């Protein structure tokens, strides 16, 4: 099964189960969880079921295309089910079957792994799902988001698409993945991107510009919060978060400063969540 077929199968599977199938968010983010369809929709009482593939950018994970499983740009497949349905584990397991993983041939296990995002003021309990000892999915019941209790709790499934695909296709390097099921490889599409972006992330990105961008995003976020516009405010918080990650990759943030930058991003994200709650008239 090609990489894109896996995404298509998952789209079809979760669409059949009532999910809204969204396209990726059009901004750089470190994880699918940052998508407004996860973060903001996890707040408030309204039911919400959505699935989407999200490109994730983690500048410090870049390896110039030389490491077979580490990339600074890769895909997560994210499913959000709110409130978490009682059969969520079975729904998830059936989705694995749908993409060709036979649970009588492979050893699938739910291993304790609690999730916490200091940047989002969020935490949840759950597992990493193992397939023959490999983590293929992060499974979380959100308990808090932006510092607010989730009422009701959403279940979040985050599939590591490249890992799953490598597993299904039996290849040892991400760049050898068959992308379209017809011979076009992942490497043909992304190897050059990895090389250039790694170089930019680690060596070239102008740090003065980045510091400036960080401050501008932060102040624009505050501007939006004053105007009581939580969604644009949140976008600026995501932007600040990504710029911070770039600064980290450039190695210009000392250990001591790191905590204070993270605290700033957290305040922006939490402020946006708070404004989102207020805008919708939801009590904490």
């Amino acid at each position, binding site marked *: 099964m090609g990489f894109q077929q896996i995404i298509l199968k998952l789209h079809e599977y979760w669409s059949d189960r009532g999910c809204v199938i969204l396209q990726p968010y059009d901004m750089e983010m470190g994880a699918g969880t940052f998508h407004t369809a996860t973060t903001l929709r996890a707040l408030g*009482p309204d039911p919400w079921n959505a699935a989407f593939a999200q490109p994730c950018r983690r500048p410090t994970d870049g390896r110039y295309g030389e490491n*077979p*499983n580490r990339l600074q740009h890769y895909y997560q497949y994210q499913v959000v089910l709110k*409130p*978490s*349905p*009682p059969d969520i*584990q079975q729904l998830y*397991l059936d989705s694995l079957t749908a993409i060709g993983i*036979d*649970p*009588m*041939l*492979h*050893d*699938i*296990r*739910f*291993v*304790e792994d*609690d999730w916490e995002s200091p940047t989002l003021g969020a935490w*949840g*309990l*759950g*597992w990493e799902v193992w*397939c*023959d*000892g*490999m983590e293929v999915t992060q499974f979380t*019941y959100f*308990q808090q988001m932006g510092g607010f*209790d*989730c*009422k*009701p*709790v959403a*279940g979040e499934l985050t599939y590591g698409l490249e890992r799953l695909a490598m*597993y299904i296709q039996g290849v*040892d390097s991400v760049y050898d993945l068959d992308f379209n099921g017809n011979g076009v490889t992942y490497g043909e599409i992304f190897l050059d991107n990895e090389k250039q972006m790694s170089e930019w992330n680690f060596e070239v990105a102008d740090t003065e510009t980045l510091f400036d961008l960080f401050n501008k995003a932060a102040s624009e976020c505050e501007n939006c919060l004053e105007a009581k516009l939580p969604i644009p405010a949140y976008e600026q918080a995501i932007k600040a978060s990504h710029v911070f990650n770039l600064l980290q990759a450039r190695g210009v943030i*000392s*250990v*001591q400063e790191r905590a204070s930058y993270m605290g700033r991003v957290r305040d922006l994200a939490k402020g946006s969540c708070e404004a989102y709650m207020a805008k919708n008239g939801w009590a904490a």
Partner: protein
Amino acid sequence: MTDFLLELLSEEIPARMQAKARADLERLFVAQMEEAGLNAGEITVYSTPRRLALIAKNLPQQTEAVSEESKGPPDGAPDQAVDGFCRKNGVTRDQLEVRDVKGRPTYFAVINRPGRDTKDVLAAAIPAIIRAFPWPKSMRWGDASLSTESLRWVRPLSGIVALFGEDLVECEIDGLTSGTETVGHRFHHQGSITIGSAADYADKLRAAHVLVDHEERQDIVRAGAAKAAAEGGLELVEDEGLVIENAGLTEWPVPLLGGFDPAFLDVPEEVIQLTARVNQKYFICRDKSGKLAPNFVCTANIEATDGGQAIVAGNEKVLAARLSDAKFFWELDQKTPLEDHAKKLGNIVFHEKLGTVADKVERVAKLAEWLVSLEGNGFDQSSPGDALHREVTEAARLCKADLVTEMVGEFPDLQGLMGGYYAEKQGKSEAVANAIRDHYKPVGQGDEVPTDPVTVAVSLADKLDTLVGFFVIKERPTGSKDPFALRRAALGIIELVLANSLRLDLDYVTAKASNLILRTIEKMSGSQSDSWISEHLGEELFRAVPDFFVDRLKVQQKGAGVRHDIIDAIVSSGQRDDIVLILARVKALQAFVETEDGTNLLAGYKRASNILKKESAPGADPESRAEGAADALGSASSAEHVALSYTPEPAEQALIDALDAAQPQVGTAIGKEAFTDAMSALAALRAPIDRFFDDVTVNDEDQEKRAARLALLARFRDAVHQVADFSKIEG
């Protein structure tokens, strides 16, 4: 008598929480039964990743009927009092009985509580147990989580089976009702299973590929892993923690043997073991010669249709990826000399008030050099330029360098060990590499205590710097809180000192360490710390640090049978800054006070001490005891020479003679650290003091005699105090 079964079905419970969960389930159940007046009987608890189960055997059908009596006010008491009594007991006035109590007619309420059906008791107990369950972390889920008041469990609770005999115990909690159905293995069994009673529970589950008894699963993992290794001609490295964890991750454990590329064996064994164990929960194996084999045993949760081939292949791939990361780190780290790694320690904050790790390393190096350059402290005294001095400096400066290596970043437990390996690879001397590797030792009681002088010096300096540093900034342990593990540091120092017979003056060492720390503080604040010193240091620190050591020494020596009161007696006599000396004196004293001479001498001492206190003799005021002792010593020494105005009684003279002989002997013996000799000299006072009390009246009418005899007793007491403060000794 009837058996009860309770199963709480849940989504996967973390393996590490299962043992406590079983104990909690039993404890909460017993408490509920006791409260209802039921004997909980014989209880068995089980756990799997998906369920907690309890079987209680031989419960009665009903609780026993109870009749309770409650005594009320006397007949004729005001109505208000009587009505209040009725309300409290839930009876009406005409139900009260009047009985005679010591001649007074008094109201009694008799409350008969009929027996309750055990089934009803259980129905009430189950929700109470679930609500009270103390999970380390719990969560909300599903529709009910619209309210934050909804039920919390470790992961979603999905079912309750509750059977009393063959009857369903009906109960409900947060919309979840009890039933007779449960589920089998997640993949080996479809649909639900109906449980008939406690008797068929385990068997029904077994038929559905669930071994509910965790001990049975542990046995299978233990024996199965060993067997899988043996079939490959290998020996399993036993690991009971992994046995329990794997049993907690599976309902139907199937150990399988896998392998990895022998090229990875270049990586240190500890790294391979840690990668396999921590990240993947695999056992490792050795070949017949005892060498680490390129194999592992993983524990699957299914009997796969292909016999486990795909599972093994998948796990091999995962481990290979992890080992190739480890190998990459191992090789990458070696490209940078430890000296260069060490430079990056300036970016890591040790503690905001104590500077960076680089600052700490600098202090440790200076302190370690100083320790080995002191005279007579037990190290082969060294001076700058000689081998010991050079190696101590080098090891100290490199001892924390591995903290910034990739490998230790990935596996913090490997700190020290990796530094040792990298030092070796870099061609450092064995002594330096050993010191880097072992300078964290001893970690807690029972750990190996270093004896190589370079390691000892660095280890001591590191721990002293930590201990004194946090004492200086007043971050000291309180009660159960010891966030910087200072108790462990002190214990480590004590063990190093004792194992190597190091003669350290704790005052002196504290002063040196605190000076180095103050220099860091000055550097950070950019100002002189004179005022800071007077505010934070001085006397208090030099009391607090040795006191802390004495305290730890008591704990450390308890296991060896050393009495804390004996330690107090020695410390109180002024011996407080040399641990080796303290302990030598303590041991001699303890041996002595446990002899007949010792016991009697102690009795004589207490008697003398009591008389002196009563007579307001010098030193009677406990506030000025030390001063009083000095006075007494003065008068005692004069008593040697001042001729008595009367002829002393024979027993009195005998005591004077004995003291004349013993005092210098005790003094000399202590000076030579010959503590057993000091005790023997003291023992010679036992017979004379006994005789003195038998034959001589201290409280003589003749004031001169009285004063002289009191002075003699004071002199006796002071002679004893040369050895120890006997007043601290119990018994």
